[in-house]
């Protein structure tokens, strides 16, 4: 059941850090920097809190992309949670890739509190990337 490209509305899960990226997202909102609404943002206290399970869960449940936004290195409220996540991320990329999910469906970006425009840009860009790739291979199949 492949949808045509034009009406493909990607489902994106965004796991964002409470301190920086979430602030940037709010800032984008109050600055009226619009970005596609089909992003399901889930606030994490820190990217370091993101369990690999969340990413797998999202992909197996049909997410077309998973975006992770954290503080710039050095800015983490918890000193280095963002770097710890970055380390985990490498393994996750290898795993999802092997199972046929394009690595680019999982994206990690550092977005600082003041970076409303960057947040907007990243969201728009990520959705575009996903749109270009088409729906996730997990879409429309029965996942056991």
């Amino acid at each position, binding site marked *: 059941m492949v949808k045509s490209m034009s*009406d493909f*509305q990607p*489902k994106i*899960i965004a796991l964002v850090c*409470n*301190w*920086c990226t*979430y*602030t*940037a997202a*709010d*800032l984008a*909102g*109050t*600055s*009226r920097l*619009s970005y*596609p*609404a*089909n992003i*399901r943002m*889930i606030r*994490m*206290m*820190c990217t*370091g*809190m*993101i*369990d*690999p*399970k*969340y990413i797998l*869960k*999202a992909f197996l*449940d*049909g*997410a077309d992309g998973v975006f992770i936004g954290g*503080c*710039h290195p*050095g*800015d983490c*409220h*918890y*000193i*280095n*949670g963002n770097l*710890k*996540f970055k380390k*985990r991320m490498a393994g996750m990329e290898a795993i999802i890739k092997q199972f046929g999910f394009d690595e680019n469906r999982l994206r990690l970006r550092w977005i*600082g*509190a*003041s*970076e*409303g*425009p*960057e947040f907007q840009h990243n969201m728009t860009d990520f959705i575009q990337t996903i749109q270009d790739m088409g729906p996730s291979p997990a879409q429309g199949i029965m996942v056991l």
Partner: protein
Amino acid sequence: MNQPANILVIGAGISGIRSALDLAELGYKVCLLDRAPAMGGILTRLDRQFPNNHCGICRMLPMFDRDNSEEFCLRKGLSHENIEVLLSTEVIAVEGNPGNMTVTAVKQATGVDADRCIGCQECEKVCPVEVPDTFNAELGKRKAIYLAVPYQMPNQRVIDLQACTRCGECVKVCPTAAIDLERTPETLTFENIGGVVLASGTGLFNPQDMDIYGMGHFPNVVTSSAFERILSSSGPYQGSLIRPSDQHPPKKIAWIQCVGSRNPMIGADYCSSACCMISIKQALFAKERLGSDTQTTIFYMDMRTFGRDYQRYRDQAEKENNVAFVRCRIHSIEPNEEEGNLKISYVDHSGKPVNAVFDMAVLATGKDPLRKLPDFAAHPGIIATDAVSEWMDIGSSVVSASGVSERLARMLSSAGIKPEKQATAPLSDKVAGSPHLQVVLCSCNGSLDKVIEENQLAAELKKIPGRIDIMQAKSVCDAEGLDQVKEILLNGPANRVLFAACNAQVFRPKLKQLAAVTGIPKEFMDVVNLRGLTENAASHDLLGEIMNQLEMRANRLFRKKITPADVRPIQKTALVIGSGPAGLSAALALAAQNIKVVLVEKKETIGGNFANIHDAQIREMIGQLMDEAKDHPLITMHTDTEVINNAGVAGQFVARLRHANGAETTVLHGAAVIATGGGKADLPADTLADNKIISLYDLEAELNQPGIDAANINTVVFMQCIGSREEPRNYCSRICCLKSLKTAMKLKELNPNCDIYVFYRDMMTYGESEKFYTQARAKGIIFIPFEKQEKPAIKIESGRVLVEGYDPVLNEPVCIEADRVALASGLIPNPVDLVASTFHVETTQDGFIQEADSKWRPVDTGREGIFVCGLARGPVRADEAVQEGKAAGLRALRILARDTIPASQHSAYVRHAICSLCERCIAVCPFDARYVDPDLGRIMVDPVACQGCGVCAAECPNGATLIGDFEEYGVMDEIEAALG
């Protein structure tokens, strides 16, 4: 006033926030007010800070007992149970005595009723009036109705009533009738105020009125604060580093130091302390953003890199990043042939005139000399932070603010005022029962009716399995609507609430009230921004979007549990290591609050370097501290003693002390302050042996001998930075410049005919101490700058001591025959290896104790419950050591003042039954908050240290450790709902 405030803090900038939080964390009720319509002061305008080019503003927030405050970026605002924030409010009068003061303030009308505004922005869209955007240094435009700070949450607008034309367009479109243009200022009276912190800042110098810099004339001449905005993504150019005139990226940028500072002609005989570092930071960012070929030049007189890590920062900027440093004060900025470019003339090191052309110039502005303290500043009971009279970097402001908090707390306790014990609202019994969700669909006065009805939201919600009740409300923002909800929650079966309303940020504060009344914790409530979804959603599947969001939140709420709260009893004794001014101040700060203090001193006597101090004022200050400490019944002193072991966690430490006679003592304590100090550095080994060539310390001692005859001391050369500010001791010792000045002036006093020369690299007379430099010159002392690579040489020729150097002012070599050459050898820390390993804290490469964050947590270490101050942390002057001691004492007091500290709802907890004890969680914990209890054989979480970051939970493979409020099953269910 919603609640009685014990304390008023005037000014909600960095100092004000620090002080308000300090006092709120001690349990006092604080009212934090600011005349601006938004809080934060300069904090909201800064993206990144030196000397690490990172941001760490949020690190100011409370570290434990976090349930009392909301956790979000401080740019958005501050929310703490004990703090009420009042904006657009200015104090006009203060009466009464400490402990019982009456304060009168005027709250300006902002035209917008905060109780009604839902932050929908409709007003701003229609407002026809555009004025320069003050938040962005007037580099852009904003409307007359605007968001004072773009981050502000809730994002309620205010009206600039000066600019407003009263056209009424905004009134017409406001969906909640929140705008009233006819509102007048309100007078507020605060009674029974215990004390007032004055933290109103100094204001920034505006160079607009100086005709030399062309500010206002040339668009590409901007102030450093404007440059900060240009760098910022929330700034006028969305973070593109472009110049105002043509929006092109500049290739050559000049920074002009001391604009409005170090200028007695405009009443500014002071140094603004932070500007040098700010300019270096900005130059580095310019290079980072625009490429390393961008030319950045800093015109300076003295690069005041006096902070512990600042010299290396400068060196790195100079050597690795090719930031050019030119020692010449700039006379004027002039136009150049190319449109928008600027010509700056200067003289180089050899005295040659150079005309340089830049694309952009940044004026490093500091304190405003015209800003005066308010009339009531001297009223008893008002304590001002240093940042009110001096411009300073964030770290110093934070230290000073905590020092002030300490003084205020001391004042209050001597006035018999204690923080009220807070009664926590009891939880409703039904909270423990199985989840039952109440969904409240708010139509926002009918404006969302269509959305709710057309989509048949109620019917859709009913499809969700689980116990869900649904109610529709007209408006939960007004009292009537909210009462309806309260009614249902009190009498109905629901134990979780989900609102589908308008702006979640605006509504969220009301959850606190609701929680207090209903006994359902606010963590069991959530808000979905229905209006936002309706406005932003791509129309293809609005219902899907809304249902996703509602179900996501519903799922989280269904899975919420009350985190089993670990409660840590607090050992109300402090351990202070070191008895110099910092240690004594910390000890006295704690003892003043009835905390027992065990003061440990390695030497046989207390007082640190007291014996070597000659400055009468400092001697008196330290002497007083020594006397007070000796007499204090709560302070137990152990001289000739070292701490050899310390175990445990914040609130519950066990230390072992070893005395000189070999005996050992065990001390149970709740927090430790490391104040191990330091002392003078020795002269370099290659110093020529001659009794005329001595250390600055020795000359100071010589001149302070009673009855000293200085008649034969006719020519004296001081040499600064001996061994300092170059590897391996690449930091400024901070005291030497001032000491040389004072010693030189003392000499002038003893022998007015004495010729004095000071060879210096950069005179580090920051802040008000600049006046000493000015005075010293006025006394005829000649100052000759030198560069690190061209040090003056000292020679001995047939018994004569000669100093050969180069005077770049005369562009000539100079040779001075001196009766004394005084070498400023600087300061080094006392060895800290033992103390660092004992207390598990990190050290710097120079052997100081590393603080948690030099800006935002300057006297904390990486371990909760262990604090550091004074020379142990970095070079300080004695008065600064006292200030740091007070601040460290105050920080420790937050822990020690309590009997117990409960874990925050939002902390890590361990399910021991399934824990495999692999200790990966311990390895990743950034706060050393986890440990194995050797008796129980269990992983324990320190409720004081844990910050709830969740790295442990993510590292734990089987959910044996979880984070309150972010339990994995809840997040998994939320993800599932999001993708439904």
